[in-house]
């Protein structure tokens, strides 16, 4: 198979290729002779590694573990969660029923059922629990209490008479009185239309066979007993940390309980699960699902692009196979040496494919060039191999240095990524220099390749002629873009990166829009309750703080004054007047009679009455009911159920709310106390709410900073977010500086000329500035997802720079360099990475999408700087070097 290579010809010299040493030549020949053995060995290794990965693949899903546990904020948080474990990793069930009162009742039932499963749900808490239903009035201030008193006073006759007759009869009588002859003198009928409209909707939905009970509790307003229509149950689940989705068993159990309790959509209930544990699960779901999905898509697009770019199906197969093999090896290496992946280090796939494919392309394009020149496969492979060793090794080493630079940072997620990605560069290099030549050596080369080299896309670009203009323009743009580039913000909010199609995310976003202050509270741990109270008082003086709560905040002030008012209310609205009469008549005939009376009352409403329209609507609905369903006893009783709606629950809750008990620190409910005061150590928690809109990251930072000036050891979600952002930005800054120094040293060692090293860095730096500036102009910010582009940018930027500068440094004129296959390879490789990962730009997950967009922007600028700006600069720098190619 082997044959002697032709002696290096003159073209070789002109292009500045050093003649390879005989030893290297012999080594390459041996490799080619054992090509099949190499491929068999590689395949076996791949299968073994694949098996290992399949068996041992895990992602450490704890997002907090991404940060070094030695950070002060992490330590404080750990301390807080040790003392108040019920606050950590919770699932928040957002309960909505057809009416506020039914929501509250459903939340209570759900909480009760969850509490029975102590093993799975160690802590179940309702922020608006029964205690606050019973004592809610004490938490209002005096003027608010007066408003409630007035409202209840006005409502008393209606509520009490309905309580005595909870049926269509009661409703009919009430409406009869309101629209009857004695009421005609009353000018104000504006409120009654709402009631009639609600009744009409209920009858209409009954006609349509739906269940939509009248929401009396909503009509009465949130302050009267039932509360808001959205209720919360906060659950501390036992997490299965060994699993990929630790909260999954708990979530499934909640869903089962929901179904058992009949809290179904048909009954008008909706229970959505969110909270840290559910969000983590959602994030992992989308990360794993997204990762496998996009990886497949990436490989697919990559294959297509390579097929076209290399003009050869076989070469494409060789590159993709090599890539897959070394990918599996890298994953196995990562698992074995670095340990389980985390949510950051799993992104090594992006970095690996980005650079791995570049190595393959550089090699294959070179091979194509040599094939056209030498017209024989084996010598061409050998030639490509021998000439590619230096640039590829240097590029891989530079990329590895760039990734390894993350190792000493505080961001353990990033340092794990650095370890895996850095090592994977060396593995990819091995694959490209050993497996890929073996593939190419045993595959027949296409005839077309032998006949004509397909490269030289850049030969007609007049870069050299306009070198001064290009350089000047690049310098001007670079300087102008610099301030913009430096101003691009870092948005640390991880919630924005999550897939809002997921229930947990969507629900969280909804809650956040409605009330960000309650979702992002800061906690401060103090030695005792007195210290907590003192700190809370100081914090209450801080501008960005709305209020700071301690256990004592739940003991209402001025209780004497409030009890006097409530006592008065008790006289006006005595509890016995709210006692509900026994269940309404289940006699369908009685209901029919009442319905028919109601119809008569409505018919008596004059046309010019302000309630004429809703009365007509209710009347029509009742007529329709009578003509279609009135024969059916069950339908009649169902209609009564819809019209009576949540009135029984509403009245019962109101009645409870009117009988508060004096509240002391000791009489507060146990679960509430335990959330603010540790019974064992006496340590107390201060919970700080912000007055700012925390959907804005700047406000979040300000809130954290303000609280930290008063309480340096503050913790909680906002602090963690801000501190994590600081740590992450710091980590990336440090690793970038280290990477720059390391690569500089490496290049200096190899190139032995600081000027040339600077030339390698030039396109990278300019591309970095332009990328950041473009993002700024487009209103994008760096975030936890797309910051990963930074190491990729460095890796690819340096690699491309090395290819160019090496070729040029070997003595060729820049126009000659542009005529070789190398710029084409750079373009193809950049395009390959851009298309395979840029495809993520259209992903539904915002995190994925923004990563894809940033990557596309970055690669565009890298290519521009390497292929246009760098040649122009080289053209100026090379000075006297003569443009030999012109004579061709």
């Amino acid at each position: 198979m082997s044959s002697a290579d032709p002696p290096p010809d003159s073209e070789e010299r002109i292009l500045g290729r050093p003649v390879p040493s005989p030893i290297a030549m012999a080594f390459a020949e041996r490799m080619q002779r054992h090509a099949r053995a190499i491929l068999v060995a590689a395949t076996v290794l791949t299968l073994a590694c694949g098996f290992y990965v399949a068996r041992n693949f895990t992602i450490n899903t704890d997002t907090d573990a991404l940060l070094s546990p030695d950070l002060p904020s992490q330590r404080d948080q750990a301390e807080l969660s040790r003392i108040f474990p019920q606050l950590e990793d919770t699932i928040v069930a957002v309960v909505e029923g057809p009416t506020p009162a039914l929501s509250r009742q459903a939340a209570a039932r759900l909480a009760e059922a969850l509490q029975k499963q102590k093993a799975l749900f160690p802590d179940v808490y309702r922020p608006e629990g029964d205690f606050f239903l019973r004592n809610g009035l004490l938490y209002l201030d005096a003027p608010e209490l007066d408003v409630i008193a007035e409202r209840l006073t006005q409502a008393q006759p209606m509520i009490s008479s309905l309580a005595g007759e909870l049926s269509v009869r009661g409703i009919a009588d009430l409406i009869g009185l309101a629209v009857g002859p004695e009421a005609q003198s009353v000018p104000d009928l504006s409120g009654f239309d709402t009631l009639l409209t609600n009744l009409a909707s209920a009858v209409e939905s009954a006609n349509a066979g739906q269940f939509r009970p009248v929401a009396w509790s909503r009509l009465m307003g949130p302050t009267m007993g039932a509360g808001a229509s959205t209720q919360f149950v906060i659950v501390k689940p036992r997490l299965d940390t060994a699993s990929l989705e630790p909260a999954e068993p708990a979530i499934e159990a909640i869903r089962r309980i929901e179904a058992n309790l009949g809290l179904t959509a048909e009954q008008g209930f909706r229970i959505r699960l969110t909270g840290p544990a559910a969000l983590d699960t959602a994030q992992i779901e989308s990360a794993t699902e997204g990762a496998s999905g996009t990886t497949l898509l990436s490989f697919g697009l990559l294959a297509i692009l390579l097929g076209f770019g290399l003009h050869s199906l076989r070469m494409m197969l060789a590159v993709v196979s090599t890539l897959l093999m070394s990918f599996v090896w890298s994953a196995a290496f990562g698992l074995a040496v670095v340990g389980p992946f985390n949510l950051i280090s799993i992104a090594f796939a992006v970095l690996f494919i980005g650079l791995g494919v570049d190595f393959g392309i550089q090699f294959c394009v070179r091979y194509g060039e040599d094939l056209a020149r030498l017209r024989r496969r084996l010598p061409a492979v050998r030639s490509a191999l021998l000439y590619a060793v230096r640039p590829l090794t240097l590029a891989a080493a530079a990329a590895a240095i760039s990734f390894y630079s993350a190792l000493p940072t505080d961001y353990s997620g990033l340092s794990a990524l650095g370890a895996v990605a850095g090592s994977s560069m060396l593995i990819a290099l091995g694959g490209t220099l050993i497996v890929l030549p073996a593939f190419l050596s045993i595959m027949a080369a296409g005839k077309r390749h032998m006949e004509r080299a397909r490269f030289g896309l850049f030969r007609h670009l007049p870069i050299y002629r306009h070198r001064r203009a290009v350089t000047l323009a690049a310098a001007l743009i670079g300087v102008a873009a610099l301030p913009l580039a430096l101003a691009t913000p870092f948005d640390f909010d991880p919630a924005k990166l999550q897939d809002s199609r997921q229930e947990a995310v969507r629900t969280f976003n909804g809650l956040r829009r409605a009330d960000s202050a309650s979702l992002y509270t800061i906690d401060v741990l103090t030695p005792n309750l007195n210290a907590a109270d003192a700190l809370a008082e100081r914090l209450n003086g801080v501008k960005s703080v709305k209020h700071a709560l301690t256990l004592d905040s739940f003991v209402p002030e001025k209780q004497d004054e409030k009890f006097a008012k409530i006592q008065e209310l008790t006289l006006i609205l005595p509890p016995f007047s709210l006692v509900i009469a026994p269940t309404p008549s289940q006699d369908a005939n009685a209901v029919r009679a009442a319905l028919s009376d109601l119809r008569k009352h409505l018919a008596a409403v004059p046309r010019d009455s302000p309630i004429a329209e809703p009365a007509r609507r209710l009347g029509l609905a009742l007529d329709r009911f009578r003509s279609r369903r009135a024969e059916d006893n069950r339908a009649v009783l169902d209609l009564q159920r819809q019209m009576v709606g949540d009135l029984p629950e509403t009245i019962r809750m109101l009645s409870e709310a009117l009988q508060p008990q004096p509240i002391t620190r000791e009489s507060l409910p146990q679960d509430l106390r335990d959330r603010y005061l540790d019974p064992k150590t006496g340590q107390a928690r201060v919970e700080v709410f912000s007055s700012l809109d925390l959907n804005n990251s700047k406000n979040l930072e300000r809130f954290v900073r303000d609280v930290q000036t008063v309480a340096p050891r503050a913790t909680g979600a906002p602090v963690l977010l801000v501190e994590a952002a600081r740590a992450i930005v710091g980590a990336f800054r440090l690793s970038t500086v280290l990477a720059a120094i390391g690569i500089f040293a490496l290049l200096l060692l190899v190139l032995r000329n600081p000027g040339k090293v600077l030339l390698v860095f030039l396109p990278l730096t300019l591309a970095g500035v332009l990328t950041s500036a473009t993002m700024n102009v487009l209103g994008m910010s760096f975030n936890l997802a797309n910051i990963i582009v930074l190491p990729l940018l460095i890796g690819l930027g340096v690699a491309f720079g090395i290819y160019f500068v090496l070729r040029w440094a070997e003595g060729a004129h820049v126009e000659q360099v542009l005529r070789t296959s190398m710029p084409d390879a750079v373009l193809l490789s950049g395009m390959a990475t851009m298309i395979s990962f840029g495809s993520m730009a259209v992903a539904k997950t915002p995190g994925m999408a923004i990563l894809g967009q940033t990557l596309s922007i970055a690669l565009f600028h890298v290519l521009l700087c390497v292929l246009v700006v760098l040649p122009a600069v080289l053209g100026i720098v090379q000075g006297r070097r003569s443009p030999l190619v012109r004579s061709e």
Partner: protein
Amino acid sequence: MTHFRSAFSLARRTLLAMAFLTSAALGAPAASTQTPQVQSAADPRHVVEHFHDTLIRAMHKGGKTAFDTRYAMLDPVIRRTFDLPYIGRAVLGPYWSKLNPEQQKTFLEHFARNTVATYAGRFNLYSGERFATLNEQTLQPNLRVVDTQLAESGGKTHRFSYLLRRTTEGWQVVNVLVDRISNIAVQRSEYTAILRDKGFDGLIARLDAMTKSMRESS
């Protein structure tokens, strides 16, 4: 929420009419008279029963010319049975503290007259009605309910629930609920609305007008 409030306020006005409807249509006099018991030290049930007895006796004196007689008869009993200063205060709710002491005094006097006149006007004829005490409950140590029932001769019944509070004067009525409708609630809604719209003088004028119409219509 506001809508519903007005809905209730509407209902309240109509129910106000209803609350006294029954008693307004009462019938002819009869002959039973009893000596009033001494009631200052009496327990809540006796306070209420004494009041009912007085009402029944007043009804026996029914007829157009007898309004003043009935008024004179009821006036001392009502002022003793009911804690009128307390009720008056509760009826004005938060507005009470906005009146000056002179106005408060004036209001209480006109309110008391109106209350007496209302009873004298509504319970104007006897036609076989009977009050029966159903039970007595303790709501709070100093607050009790006496549940009674008024049976009309036609067989219709109405529930009168009296809330009594222990004061220095003994047990005094602070609210009456007729068929679950709270008297203070009805009056408070009405009076505070008048106060808001027409001011203090408007309220006094309205009270006097109602007192007058009671006298004229009975």
